[in-house]
Structure formats: structure tokens, C-alpha cells
């Protein structure tokens, strides 16, 4: 059951901006809250509006050219980075004075602060107008109590377009694009998939949600596309090793002191079937290439070996696809227009000794169909 609503939406509040939050409250002809609660202004409610009126005013509208999260501000509603910049540049004001002015800081005071910040940054960068100091990772925590959650960068529109161009126009492989741009392979695939739909919408004249996209992108931190490969900032870690469940337990593995105990041996010690780190990372080809470079091979040979590896991978994938296609082709299909029947060989023994095995085909006498039973969940588990 949802928690019960405490606030009545028709409570008249002396604060002017109550109207902004609930503009139509005074016009509502009914209230669902009990009479005894109406008209009661609790301390919490009063404090909330007080906060919204003072420090909280900064969060009403987005901060132009920056993200606007709670952790970027201190308790007085001043941007931390602005304060830090001011501390470095002008240390004339005493700390007492500063806190006194901070306590007064409302929206107007904030604009003063940012003006000062602009001056500071102007000194640093040499005349860049209306620019805040660049935000740090600490400024991107939306939840002040949660020190481990950050609002991570999203790909800018230009970056997405570039990824799409590389895959669809230049014909690069997903692996290659991922390794050169620093974007996870799954993300590369998703970007292309979504971009294709966007282009289809454009060509069919379906309106895009442009104002929404522009507003949201301006509120989020972004990884911008840089055409120079050296100056390019990687979007995310692309070679991450998923922690396997078998490796979460500490084990005692007695072995000789002289043994050359590698990562592969360690994997075997954890689980017989566990592959080593080098095989479980998404980009093993990057490690192989790095090994070639470290071995001092000439650049042409390194490139040649890399392309050979890529060809081998493509061939293996093709073989696998062929195998699947062959399997599919073996199934006889009869299309009746209403339904496509797939006819394949079935063994009676699949049903098991008692005839109730899960791999058995068809309805069997004495085995109830569970799907009509009470409490059976019918939500699909996959959509193809």
C-alpha cells in the first residue's frame, strides 16, 4: 500500500511561491484530505517552503551551461566550485563576512556569486564571458547522502552521429569503433539502433521531440566528440571484467612455491570451467595488440596481425551463423497464412520414465496444465 498523503493540497500558505508549485490548488472545489488536517501548517512544511524560497531557489530552473545537482551547492546555497575559485583568487574577505553573506544568499545573491565566479574565471581563462568554473565529479552527485552514485556523462548528439556514421557509412566493425572511441560495444550497438529509428522518423516526417531533447541534454553532463584521436576523452571503461560469482569466495589453494601460477591457473582454482581474465574481458584483441607492440614488432606487422585476428573472428562468427541457419533449414515449415507450423522430429523418450519430464512434447494424460492455475504469472519474460 502506498504511504498515506500527509499534505492537503488546499492549505493556504503565506508564501507566494506556493502558487508556483501548485498553481491550481486554490481553484479546486474538493479536497480528499480529512478536515482536521486542513489548515494545519506543520513545522516541516514551513521549513520546506523556507528552504525552497532561499537555498532551494537555485534548483527551480536549470543552470545554463552546467549540471545543477544538490551536491554542487553548500548548505548556504552557494556553488562550491565558485566558492573554491573565489578562495583561490580573492582572499580579501574574512570568513565571517563570507558566511554572513552566504546566509542571505537567495536567487539574487546567487547571481552575484556567479558574477564573481565569472570574474575569477575571466582572470584564469583570459576573458571567457559568463562561464562558470568547470564542474568536478563531486559536483555531479544528485543524492548528497549517497557518496557512490554519480551522474555519469551521456554521449552528445554529435558523438552519436559520428558513431552512426562510422558503422553505417564507413562500415567499421562495432569492436573497432568501441576501441577507437572508448564507448562500450553494447552502447555502440544501441546508439546505431536508436539513430536508425531517428533517421526513419525524419524521412517519414514524424515529428521528433526536439524541445524535450534539447532541454534534457542541457541538464546532463556530456562527452563531446573530438575529431583529434589524441585529444579524445574516453566515454567509459570499455575493458571491464565482470566479477564472477565463483571468485567471490576466498579459497585456500596449496601449491608449490616454485610454480608459475598465472591468471589462468587462478581461474581454474576458483572453478574448473572458469575462463581466465584475458579471455573474459570484452576486448582481448586490445591486449594481444599491446603484447605485439611490447614485443617490439614493426607497426606494419602489428597491424597485419590485428587484421588477421579480426578476419579469424569474422570467420568463426560466420561459421556459427551457418550452423544455426542449417539447423533452422532442417525444420520443415508449413505456412497456412494464419500460422506457421514447424514440423520436427520428436522422441517419445524425452518425456522421461514417468512421462512428466519438462522436455516432453505435447499434452499428456494426468499432467495438469499449469497456465490456468491461480497465481501463475503471465507477464512475458522476453519480447523478440
Amino acid at each position: 500500500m502506498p504511504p498515506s498523503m500527509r499534505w492537503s493540497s488546499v492549505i493556504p500558505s503565506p508564501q507566494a511561491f506556493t502558487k508556483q508549485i501548485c498553481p491550481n490548488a486554490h481553484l479546486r472545489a474538493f479536497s480528499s484530505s480529512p478536515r482536521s488536517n486542513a489548515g494545519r501548517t506543520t513545522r516541516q512544511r514551513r521549513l520546506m517552503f523556507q528552504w525552497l524560497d532561499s537555498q532551494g531557489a537555485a534548483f527551480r530552473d536549470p543552470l545554463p551551461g552546467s549540471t545543477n545537482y544538490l551536491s554542487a551547492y553548500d548548505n548556504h546555497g552557494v556553488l562550491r566550485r565558485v566558492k573554491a575559485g573565489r578562495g583561490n583568487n580573492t582572499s580579501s574577505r574574512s570568513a565571517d563576512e563570507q558566511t554572513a553573506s552566504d546566509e542571505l544568499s537567495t536567487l539574487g545573491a546567487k547571481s552575484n556569486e556567479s558574477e564573481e565566479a565569472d570574474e575569477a574565471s575571466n582572470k584564469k581563462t583570459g576573458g571567457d564571458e559568463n562561464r562558470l568554473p568547470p564542474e568536478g565529479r563531486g559536483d555531479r552527485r544528485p543524492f548528497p547522502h549517497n557518496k557512490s552514485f554519480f551522474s555519469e556523462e551521456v554521449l552528445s548528439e554529435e558523438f552519436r552521429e559520428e558513431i552512426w556514421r562510422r558503422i553505417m557509412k564507413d562500415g567499421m566493425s562495432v569492436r573497432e569503433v568501441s576501441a577507437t572511441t572508448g564507448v562500450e560495444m553494447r552502447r555502440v550497438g544501441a546508439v546505431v539502433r536508436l539513430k536508425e529509428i531517428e533517421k526513419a522518423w525524419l524521412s517519414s516526417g514524424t515529428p521528433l521531440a526536439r524541445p524535450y531533447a534539447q532541454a534534457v541534454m542541457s541538464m546532463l553532463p556530456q562527452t563531446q566528440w573530438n575529431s583529434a584521436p589524441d585529444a579524445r576523452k574516453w566515454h567509459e571503461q570499455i575493458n571491464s571484467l565482470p566479477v564472477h560469482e565463483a571468485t567471490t569466495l576466498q579459497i585456500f589453494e596449496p601449491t608449490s612455491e616454485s610454480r608459475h601460477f598465472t591468471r589462468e591457473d587462478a581461474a581454474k582454482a576458483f572453478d574448473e570451467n572458469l575462463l581466465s581474465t584475458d579471455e573474459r574481458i570484452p576486448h582481448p584483441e586490445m591486449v594481444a595488440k599491446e603484447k605485439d607492440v611490447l614485443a617490439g614488432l614493426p607497426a606494419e606487422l602489428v597491424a597485419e596481425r590485428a587484421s588477421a585476428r579480426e578476419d579469424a573472428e569474422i570467420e568463426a562468427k560466420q561459421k556459427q551463423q551457418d550452423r544455426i541457419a542449417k539447423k533452422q533449414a532442417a525444420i520443415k515449415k508449413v505456412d497456412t497464412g494464419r500460422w506457421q507450423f514447424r514440423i520436427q522430429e520428436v522422441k517419445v523418450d524425452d518425456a522421461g520414465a514417468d512421462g512428466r519430464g519438462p522436455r516432453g512434447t505435447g499434452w499428456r494424460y494426468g499432467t495438469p496444465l499449469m497456465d490456468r492455475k491461480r497465481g501463475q504469472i503471465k507477464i512475458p519474460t522476453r519480447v523478440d
Partner: protein
Amino acid sequence: MSRPSGVTHYQQKWKAKSTTRAYHGEQIREKHWQRMFRSRLRAEIPMDTNYLARYDGSELAAGRGSGREMRPKDALDLRTTNKKSFRIPYMHMTYAPMERRLDTAVFRALFASSARQARQFVIHGKVKVNGKKMPYPGYMLNPGDMFSVDPESVLFATGAPKDQEAIRIGRRLKRVQQHEARQEAEAQKAAEIRRTKALEAKHAQEEEENSQQEADAAALKQERENLDEAQLKKVQRKQINELVETAQVLIRDTQNEPSAKRKVELRSFVKSAKTVSNKMQRKDPEQVDKEIEELVTSFAKLTPSPPQAEAAKREAKALKAAAEEKEVLDAEFKKEYQKSLDAIMQARYAATDESKPYATPWRPRNYMSAFAFIPQYLEVNQNICAAVYLRHPVAKPNAAEVPSPFGEDVQQLAFSWYLRRR
């Protein structure tokens, strides 16, 4: 969580679980969540390519099994000096299974302003998974699933609300539109009846003139051709309707009302577009395409161009002059056409349209920026209001992907509460 005196561990766990559940999936029954809960916490560790290439891991097992006292300097640098920053906040992953739910994912992708609203969108059939309608908010997304939300719903959920006056005008407008639609439908019905009657009469004549077989073959051929064209015509009709709708929005715009002259121009445009739409059934699809292109270019001239667009136009002209020889004429025309379409769309979004359920021109809701973030396990395209669920959320050194306002200690207590029952 500092332990207050007189509070048992059990009480602490209860408190932690109830506070965290008030944020994480409060729309779900407790039993349901207990079934979803998994004690397995996913994590990922970034690997350094250079380190993997240089060492096979034996340096960590050298000596008596835990590495030599004096290790190679690089290995030391890469693995051990930043041991402190290698702490993985596992406890923040307590509510990770909740993030797999479709309603939560829609909320996290910023397509709804709360998980409850997202749930409503799903139930109302506004959300598709892999292109198919998915009415179950409890659908657990699989890695690679794409979900998309109706853009109008997203604009409503994230846009500023209308004021009372706008709501009233909108209601009046809706009533008028419904009335007009009803009248038009009736007129069409009457026309349809007239047409079929005329056709029947014609067929009767033809039957008399031609042999039965020949007529059948001709009808069959005609039908097949129609089938091929039908879909194309449908798309074309949609395009024209879109243009007509935009023109009507511009005529109605109350904020910057068009001048009398422009209104006349817009109305005549609507009339000509409707004529094209009415007569398209008898025409070649290619011919209709040409007519639509003409309509778009003529309409783009009618839309008010903001000063920014003017500057962009000038810039584009300069660019064009530089690369004039390279550009193929056909491509240029296509670009020009696209630009016209963009201008039309821009004009539509800048206009005040009281028929929408949100304040127009669209602007984001208050206090949206403080909560605007997109977790890394989603890839979102805001233009089409669609997103892909890439993978399950994971914890990484010093960062966890599950968005939660609670600290690690509170989440740890909640985790141990649910662990108790398995």
C-alpha cells in the same frame, strides 16, 4: 548509521528497510519485492590493457603465494598503490533488481516524472518494448531490450503544466474540434455512399459491355496495384495531415498571433494541402510526392524564421559558396527539403497550442534539473523518446549504478533485512 542507544539491531534493520522501500518501488507490494530480491550483487572491475599485456599474474603469486616483498615497479604502480580506490560499494546494489522493471526504467530514462507515472504510461499502452506494446509494468527488461514511450506523453510528463486559463481554452478548443470532426465524418460518409452508388452504376454498365472474365481480371489487377500503392499513399496522407495540423496550430497561436495577411496565406495553404490530399487517390504516387515537396517548400516560406535561423542561413550560404562544385544538385535539394521540414517543425514547437495537455511553447518542469541523470546501464535517444537497456546495473570501484538517495550504511541494513529471509 550511528547507533542510537536503546535501538536494537533488528529495529535498525526494520527502519532501514522501510525508509529505503519508500523510495525503491513503493508501488510494488512487499511480497513481490521479496520475490525479486537476489543476494547476488553484480560488479565489474576495469582492467588495464597495458598491465594485462605485460604480466600474466604470476607476480602476484610469487614468493610464498602473495607476491614478493619487492615487486616489479610497474606492477606495484598498477595494482597496489590505488588499492584504496578499489573499494567496490556492493551494498548500494541492494535494489538493483528493481531497476530491471519496465516502469522503473522508463522513469530512469527521464520519460516520466515518477515511477508511478511511468507505471501509468505502461498500463495505458504508451510504452513499447522492441516495437510491441507492453502493458505490464512488472516486465523485467532483458539486456538489449529497447523500450519507447509515446513522445506526447513524455512531453506531458516532463513539461511545465498549463495554467487555469489555458486549460479552459484547451477544453473549448477540444469541443469545437470534436464537433468539426463529427461533421466532417458525416460528410465523408455521405460522399462515400454517393461514390459507391456511382461506381455500382458504372460497373453495371461495364458488365453489360465486357465479358465477365475480362472484367474480373482487370479488377484483380487494379486491386493488386492498389495494394502496392496503398501503404505509400497512407504515409503520404500522414505527411500532408502533419503539415495541415502545423498550419492550423500556427493560425491558432495566441501568444504571437499571426497578422491578418499571414492568416489568409496560411488558410489558403491549408486549403491547397487539403485539395492535394483529396485528389491523391487518383494520382501517381510519384506525382503526389512532387506535390508534397512543393507544399513543404511553400509552407517553409510562410513560417516565421527566428533571427538565429537567419544567421544560420547566412552561414550556410557562405559554406555553400565554398563547396559549390562538390555538392550534387540532387543532394542539395534533399538538404533544402530537410531544412524546410525542420523550419516547419521549429515553428510548430514555438507556437502556443492550447490543444496540448502541457504548457506551450514546451519548457521543462520546475526542479527537473536537480534530478536529471541517466544511469549508465541505459542508452537513451531523447529525440524519439526511446532507450535501450544495455545490461544489468553493476557496481564499480567507488561507484554504483543504482540511483539511490541513501547512504551505504542504511542500504547495508536493508540488505541484511532481506537476506534474513532467504
